[in-house]
Every structure is written in C-alpha cells, then in structure tokens.
C-alpha cells in the first residue's frame, strides 16, 4: 500500500495500537495551550491543534538533562537511569520536524556524536501532521518549508475532515503502515482532495522573502546601523530562544555536594550577557544589540555557512511569545528591502 486512510472513528483504536507498541508522545491540551507529552490514554491526544506552545525539540534535547553522577572518593562515575522508551512522536507539525532534521547534524557529526540526543532521537518514529490551518504568525514557505513538508518525518498524516490520509516517507514509515490496524487503501478522490487542500493552505502562506535572499542580504549586514534601532525594543529575555525549535545552545554545570554530585546539561541562550563573558571580564557581545544580531544572523546566515541550510523553520513561536512584539519576519524583511 502506497498511501493509506484512517477514518476518525478508528483514530482511538489506532492510537491505542501505537501505545501497545511503545511510548506515544503527542500534543496534549493543558489549560488553554497545547504541549507535547507522553500519552496517558488515547483520548488525551489533541490532533486538532494549531501548534504547541513549546517546540517538541525537548523530546530529544530536554531542558535539563543529567549527563552522569559522580563520587570523588574512588573517582567513580555512574550513568543516569535510562528513561528513553522506544515509540512514536505523533502529530508533530512539518515545521518542527524540519527543525529536528536541522538539529541532527549538530548532535551527530564526524567529530562528535552526542549519545544522549541520538539515543532519544533513534527511539522515536516520527509521525507528522500536515498543517491545514496556518496561524497569522506562520511563515514556513519563506524559510524553505511547506505545510506538508516531509523533511525529518517517517510518516505524514493529513487531516481530510472525517479521515486522515497516511503517507509513509521512509522505510520505518512503510514498516509501520503495514503493521497499523484499520488502515484502508487511499482512493483517488482522497489523493485529489489532499492535493487540493495542500494548494489551498499554501496559498494562505505567500512567501515574504526567500531563504536565499535572506542569507545573501544578511551576509553584508553585520555592521549595519539598523541593528541599533531594531534592538531598542528587545528586552533580552530570551523567550524567543526558549520556544525556538532550532535553538540548541546549552550550558553544562556540576552540582557538587560533599564530594559527590551530578553533571547537568541545561538550555542556554545567546541573549544572555553571561553567554559570551570571558574569564578575563571581556565580553565580545557586551550589549543587547550584538546579542540580538547574533541570534538573527545565526539563524539566517551562519548556520547556512556551517550546515548548508538556514536554521529558521518559520513556526512563528518567537513572534507569538515575545512580550514586546518583536517580529523576526520584519527584521529579516528590513534587510531584504534595503
């Protein structure tokens, strides 16, 4: 079967089947927002959502992670208990899946393979959910993505109203499709409807700039006086970095007590003055202007130099959550329009 159909009446049974096979991490409603969490029951899955408050990167790269425990006496090191459970990441949006694909070469490169990230990453089959209702802050089409982008996914579901179109992308996805219960072969009209819907959603997301354009314009923008004006509003709170699906900087700290302790890895951000503070007291990014510039330049310029692609996926979280309404689209556009 190339493409399958799961009717919504069978959704509960399908998710229950997945839960039998392994841990299912999916969007779950909490208060008035949605977060990714390990499903306690099939009913808890919230597949009718715009996007999660925090990006699902935390499933593979947690906010705080114990790397190991140690004891000074006898120079002993203990591995933390392994909490990684094989299973499925269900309902991830294409922008966020693309973001995880961008993180892969950071944590898995010839010089260094990050076992903590890779073990989590390999443990989950990625089941995406195509976007059918983009938000006003969405701009994936400007960063090289699309509402039905399959990058980073093993399988993509698309909501067709009373049913999901199920498209396997990788061998892992095809294997899963063969195992899933209640899957029917997709009919020609399902495929036609899916394609029509895809075009309609894409039409709601006209590109504001292209990734290429943003890259080349920012290449000459380092000394531009415009940064000073853009920065005037920024509080440096780093909420943007915290909710960003591709921000991946971390700090490592030893929590030492009486000759024993643990080494912890924690999310960090280039928006903090401590991030670049040298032991000498010198800080190459002394002010918010340099720190804001770093974040934008890393996303749209430096990352492409290092990894071949820009590191913004257009999820719009930083725009939605910024307390002073900074808009990364406007910042990049300002340089594109110069």
């Amino acid at each position, binding site marked *: 079967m190339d493409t399958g159909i799961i009717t919504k009446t069978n959704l509960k049974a399908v998710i229950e089947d997945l839960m039998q096979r392994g841990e299912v991490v999916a969007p779950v409603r909490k*208060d008035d927002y949605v*977060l990714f969490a390990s499903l306690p029951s099939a009913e808890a899955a919230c597949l009718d959502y715009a996007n999660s408050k925090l990006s699902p990167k935390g499933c593979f790269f947690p906010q705080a992670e114990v790397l190991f425990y140690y004891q000074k006496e006898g120079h002993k090191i203990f591995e933390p208990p392994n909490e990684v459970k094989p299973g499925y990441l269900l309902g991830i949006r294409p922008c966020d899946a693309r973001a995880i694909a961008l993180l892969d070469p950071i944590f898995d490169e010839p010089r260094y393979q990050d076992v903590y990230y890779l073990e989590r990453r390999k443990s989950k089959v990625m089941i995406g959910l195509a976007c059918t209702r983009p938000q006003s802050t969405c701009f994936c089409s400007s960063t090289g993505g699309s509402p039905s982008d399959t990058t980073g996914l093993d399988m993509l579901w698309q909501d067709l109203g009373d049913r999901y179109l199920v498209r396997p992308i990788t061998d892992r996805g095809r294997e899963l499709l063969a195992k899933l219960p209640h899957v029917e072969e997709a009919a020609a009209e399902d495929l036609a409807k899916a394609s029509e819907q895809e075009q309609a959603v894409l039409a709601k997301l006209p590109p504001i700039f292209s990734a290429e354009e943003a890259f080349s314009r920012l290449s000459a923008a380092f000394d531009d006086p415009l940064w000073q004006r853009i920065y*005037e509003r920024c*509080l440096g*709170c780093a909420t943007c970095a915290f909710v960003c699906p591709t921000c991946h900087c971390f700090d490592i700290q030893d929590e*030492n007590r009486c000759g024993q302790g643990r080494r912890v890895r924690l999310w960090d951000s280039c928006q903090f*003055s401590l991030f670049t503070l040298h032991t000498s007291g010198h800080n190459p990014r002394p002010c918010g202007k340099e720190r804001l510039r770093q974040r934008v330049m890393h996303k749209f310029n430096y990352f492409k130099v290092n990894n071949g692609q820009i590191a913004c996926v257009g999820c719009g979280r930083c725009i939605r959550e910024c*307390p*002073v309404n900074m808009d990364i689209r406007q910042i990049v556009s300002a340089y594109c329009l110069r």
Partner: protein
Amino acid sequence: MKIPKVAFFDFTSCEGCQVEIANFDQDLLKLLQVVEVVEFREIMKETCSEPLDIAFIEGSFSREKDRERLQKIRQRANLVVAYGSCAATGGINALKNHKPDYKYKVEVYGADATMPHLETQKALPISAAIPVDLAIPGCPVNRQEFVRLVSDLLHGKAPTIPNYPVCMECKKKENICRYELQDTCLGVVARAGCGALCPSNGIPCEACRGFVDNPNLDSLVELLIKTGMQPAYAMAKARMFTANLVEE
C-alpha cells in the same frame, strides 16, 4: 579541617533575611555542622570581636557613621558576603534616593525625628563603603540559594548567581505569561534564581532580586506603559527594588 567562623551583621534593613535564615529548620542545623556561628543577633546573644572566616552583612549602607563599623568587619573577615537586596544593591531602601524632599521621617517619628541615629544619607549597597566578595540578591534571600552559595564558598568553588531573567524560569515551569493574562510583570528583565516564585503563584514579578546585567529599561518602561500604566507610575514600578539601578 578547621571549622570556619561566621558572623551575621545587620545595617539598614528589616532583618527579614536573618529571619529567613533563622527559620531554616533542618537545613540550618546541617549548616551549623560545617560552620561555627559566633554572632547572629536574631538567634543568639553572644557577640564576637575575633577574626572571622565569613562575615554576612544584611542591610544597606545609609549612615556615614556606619562606615567605621563596616571597615572593622572588613578588617577582621576573610570574606565579606552582602546578602539580601538591601546589602547587594541598596534594595527597597534606595527608593528614598529619588525623593529630594524626604519628609517621611517626620511623619513616622514625629517629634523624635531629630534624634541623631535617624540622621541618614542615600541608601547605598554595602560595596559603596567596603569591598564585598559576594553579593546575594533577593528580598528576602532565597534559603536554598543561600546554602548553595555558602557551600560553594566553603568548597572553594566560584559561586554563581543567575544572570538570566525570570522569564526563563517561568517558561521552564510552563507558566502562562502574565502579559498574556493582561497583567504586568518585571520578570522580563529581573534577575532569576527564585524559581519564578511570584508568577508561578499568580502574581507579577517585582524584580526583588534586581535586574540582569545591562537590562533594556527603556523598553521595559514602554512595555509597562502599554499595559495601561501612567509613565510616572511605570517608572516607579520599574525601580521598586532597583532604585539605585534606574536613573531619573
């Protein structure tokens, strides 16, 4: 190892930080196993004039005649720790620094307002009078942080105080932003370390731990004005615990 001698001193303050530490229950007893407290007005009557390993100083420096007492503490202490926002930045006392016609003394003390011990100057951090090795912010100090920092000092590790905003700790707890609830909050530029205690319990951050390094205060005041505050009120709000950090 010789058990280090420590003493607690207070200057212009409510002594709430001392109370906070005295109320430490079990953890205070554990702390007492590794340090010898030789002076602590809130919990003991003994005093000490011997050399000290650590002097903990609470309160701000607001009377010139306190300088001599501070210098004497500095001379006999190996380390001086200014703890609590009053000692670290001048704290809430420094609000009076922005009042040219400071007449509350008469309102509060009436006929006694002219007593010599009430003669005060601007409220300044302890570091304005003597060199300070470590300043621990907080109104009051956070007990857990206090123990962690004392432990760092005893272990010879450089103590670290967060230099990122309360926003980080709030996001970590997945709290709904106060601004999304049509409220105000100083957590966007306030120094973290409290675990976002106030926003997590439904009230805005007042920045009692001061601000992060080089905060964007113009933008903060603009943001507060946007939530409906009058400009003068927004300015006053921004400097409640941080009067020495916010210019006129």
